[in-house]
């Protein structure tokens, strides 16, 4: 049959052939090859889809259902571990010291009373687990899991390919978990964990640990391989595996927190931090009275104790020092992870905090900003070099969060008018949708201290204000000078004094224009709908530190009282003391309230580092109390500073907060602690 006839039959109107038919008819040479390639591509794609579908029908890789109730039978490490049992732990010296000096009674402190189990211990905690699936309501794809243990917060695991938060985002007890399927194993990666414990009884973790879990279902058994990588305290990752049994009648009971006040727990000082001085924990080894088959050296842990080679030590054949074991390395780049909490990259990073408040991470220094209809109020201004970028970030923030175009929410006469009377939609359209009000400028600057990284941007930022401060030429008979469009700068009077006496001379526009000398100071008007209150922290980092409380947003700007990337900067020449810093942190803890189970609630913006909450402040305070007491004990024994330094009273915190180079080293911090502690009376 002639081809043309076929064409005519398909397309009775010969000159109206579909475009592809015309193309095929005309295709010659290279174009025909191109068409063939296209056709093959389509065919391969179809075949691939077909294969996947058939494979699934054929019992191909399909993730198992992990959801349901699972029971822990505790076949391994049964019961409550005795205090200071470090068997099986690859502790380094820092980990051992930290565990030795941290009693379980730390749970009695107000900030930890409702603390859930730390993530590394959750699978080992009694009570089983409930695994819930989270579904996309449209596609019904599994986009995540939610884990519930008896003593834990719900732990979300995201399967939707979202990235982990930046390092300066807050940490939580369960951390931030993402997962992907590797075959039929769910691989979960968790970051952003608070410091806690590997297991009850003393072994502590730092907040820089990462956790990787491999969850595999074998019939009605679920095996979890858990890798805890915390090089601050461990010489190699801690890997354990836990088995659960499917139990549809199970389900973890809920342990409601009924935390009582510290006083009711037998304490008399809500700020008391229970701890042992090094070498003074008499409970170490006490459990060997009942478990007398275990040698004392083994319970001290260490990487050499966990390999089969250690049996030659137990048999008395070899000293442990001569032992070689196939130890593993850490994959956790802790130094970088710490530095990333306060990146010095010449950029400004914005993190929404709560209510009106944002945290700006400006090249290694934090700025707290309240942005709202009143304008902008900031706590600290960063370095002078960053002023332009900080200003641009603030303007952008105001424009995109408060003054951004919004969708029309009314029609006709129901619309509110920017001028009061009801109006047609067009004014609303003009004012809200098409051309909103320009962002309001800076109104208030608060300096928490005179530290250069907190006041460096004062002059440029304050002068960016969009309305006048002071008089307007003839106001009050010219008693109030007209100083132009400057924001009000608020600080403790000792900040003004320090800045005024600085060399080189501080520009007058950079100086505080409102100062206070009392215990606290209330900014005279609401700012963006909330009170702004400054509390003086006497003799803390310096003699002029302030804590700034955004009372409705529940945010505290801590200034240099807290840093999650270093020991606190204590300028003893300017009146700073270790005790003052501790008192200041206690003051923050008195103001702050956790939202639920010792996390969230009042947020605390540290001078440097990641956004924090009460538990983080408590952890930092606890560390300083421990160091203070250790140094005081050594000093009271008559030791010189060099002798104290040699005793390494900060050993268990140096990996996390210490530095051997840079503007604030461990030695400088230790020197400040030693120097500002009173001599024994």
């Amino acid at each position, binding site marked *: 049959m002639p081809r043309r006839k076929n064409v005519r039959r398909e397309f009775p109107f010969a000159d109206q052939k579909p475009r592809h038919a015309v193309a095929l008819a005309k295709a010659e040479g290279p174009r025909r090859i191109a068409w063939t390639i296209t056709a093959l591509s389509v065919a391969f794609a179809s075949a691939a889809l077909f294969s996947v579908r058939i494979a699934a029908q054929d019992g191909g890789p399909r993730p198992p259902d992990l959801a349901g109730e699972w029971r822990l039978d505790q076949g*391994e490490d049964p019961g409550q571990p005795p205090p200071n049992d470090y068997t099986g732990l690859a502790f380094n010296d820092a980990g051992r010291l930290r565990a030795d000096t941290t009693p379980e009674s730390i749970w009695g402190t107000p900030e930890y009373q409702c603390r859930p189990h730390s993530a590394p211990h959750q699978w080992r905690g009694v009570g089983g687990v409930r695994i819930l699936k989270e579904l996309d309501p449209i596609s019904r794809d599994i986009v995540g899991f939610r884990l519930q243990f008896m003593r834990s917060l719900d732990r979300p695991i995201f399967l939707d390919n979202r990235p982990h938060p930046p390092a300066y985002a807050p940490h939580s007890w369960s951390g931030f978990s993402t997962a992907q399927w590797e075959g039929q194993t769910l691989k979960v990666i968790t970051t952003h964990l608070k410091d806690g414990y590997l297991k009850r009884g003393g072994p502590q973790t730092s907040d820089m640990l990462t956790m990787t879990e491999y969850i595999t279902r074998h019939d009605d058994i679920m095996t979890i391989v858990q890798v805890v990588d915390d090089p601050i305290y461990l010489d190699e990752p801690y890997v354990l595996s836990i088995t659960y049994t499917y139990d549809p009648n199970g389900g973890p009971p809920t342990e409601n927190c009924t935390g009582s006040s510290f006083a009711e727990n037998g304490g008399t000082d809500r700020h008391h931090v229970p701890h042992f001085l090094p070498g003074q924990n008499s409970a170490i080894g006490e459990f060997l009275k009942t478990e007398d088959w275990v040698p004392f050296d083994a319970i001290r842990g260490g990487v050499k104790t966990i390999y089969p080679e250690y049996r030659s030590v137990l048999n008395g054949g070899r000293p442990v020092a001569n032992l070689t074991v196939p130890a593993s390395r850490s994959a956790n780049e802790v130094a970088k992870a710490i530095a990333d909490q306060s990146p010095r990259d010449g950029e400004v990073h914005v993190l929404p905090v709560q209510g009106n408040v944002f945290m700006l991470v400006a090249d290694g220094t934090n700025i707290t900003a309240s942005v709202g209809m009143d304008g902008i109020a900031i706590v600290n201004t960063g370095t002078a070099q960053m002023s332009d970028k900080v200003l641009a970030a603030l303007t952008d923030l105001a424009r995109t969060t408060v003054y951004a175009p919004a969708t029309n929410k009314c029609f006709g006469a129901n619309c509110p008018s920017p001028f009061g009377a009801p109006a047609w939609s067009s004014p609303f359209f003009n004012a809200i949708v098409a051309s909103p009000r320009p962002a309001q400028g800076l109104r208030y600057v608060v300096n928490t201290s005179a530290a250069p990284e907190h006041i460096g941007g004062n002059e440029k930022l304050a002068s960016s204000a969009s309305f006048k401060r002071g008089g307007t030429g003839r106001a009050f008979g010219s008693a109030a000078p007209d100083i132009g469009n400057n924001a009000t700068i608020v600080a403790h009077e000792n900040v003004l004094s320090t800045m005024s006496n600085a060399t080189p001379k501080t520009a007058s526009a950079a100086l505080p224009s409102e100062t206070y000398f009392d215990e606290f100071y209330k900014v005279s008007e609401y700012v963006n709908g909330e009170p702004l209150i400054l509390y003086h922290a006497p003799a803390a980092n310096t003699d002029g530190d302030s804590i700034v409380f955004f009372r409705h947003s529940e945010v505290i700007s801590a200034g240099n009282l807290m840093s999650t990337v270093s020991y606190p900067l204590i300028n003893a020449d300017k009146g700073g003391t270790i005790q003052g810093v501790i008192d200041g942190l206690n003051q923050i803890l008195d103001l702050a309230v956790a939202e639920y189970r010792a996390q969230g609630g009042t947020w605390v913006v540290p001078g440097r580092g990641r956004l924090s909450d009460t538990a983080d402040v408590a952890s930092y305070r606890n560390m300083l109390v421990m160091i203070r007491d250790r140094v005081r004990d050594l000093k009271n024994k008559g030791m010189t500073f060099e002798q104290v330094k040699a005793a390494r009273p900060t050993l268990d915190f140096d990996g996390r907060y210490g530095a051997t180079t840079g503007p604030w080293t461990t030695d400088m911090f230790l020197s400040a602690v030693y120097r500002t502690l009173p001599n024994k009376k």
Partner: protein
Amino acid sequence: MKHIVLAIVLCLLASGAALDAQRGGGRGAPPQTPRQAAPIDLTGYWVSPIIEDWKFRMVTPNKGVFGGIPLNNEGRKVGMSWDPAADEKAGEQCRAYGAGGIMRLPSRLHITWQDDAALKVEIDTGTQTRVLAFNAAPPAEASWQGQSRAQWNVPANTLKVVTTNLKPGYVRKNGAPYSNKAVVTEYWELHALPNKDQWMTVTTKVDDPVYLTRPYLTSSDFKKLPNATGWNPTPCNAK
């Protein structure tokens, strides 16, 4: 259009052939051997870091320390009669080195293919050898390692092993018993850790109607080693 139709038909045929291959050989081709079908490679040297149950594994606990083991009254009674000297005298010093307990002991493993249908697991502690056979084995006398039947779970990338025909042994070195009726079910899995370590976890379920009230579940972990360094075969020791 003809090109597209032809291409689709060819590719569907090709994909069908690929699926046949995944199932174990194309039409008319011999089925894959267990060795060829292995979804994971268990061979090599492995060491067991003793991280959990250290006090029960690295050292022998006192008689009667049975925490975590669901012994029934009879099991407890038998466990309390543990006498390592008597075991040695009776030539039963390998009771803790049977398939129901040996994976818990500090050891190195050397895993190889004995043939195309059986994995051989040599264990330096107690100088024991387990054979994980993918095909049915003829009946044999009960032994410390019993008879292990292995089966790949290809989509899951795991190995399931069921061991029966065991001589009575100990799940813990201090005499916590399992009987000759015990069935040991194991699931072997591999993971590549973030630090590039190869990690093998063996989940073990011991079902014993004689001495246990419910299955005894443990999971034992092994890290892959680059070579035989540290391989140290030692005889069974009842103490």
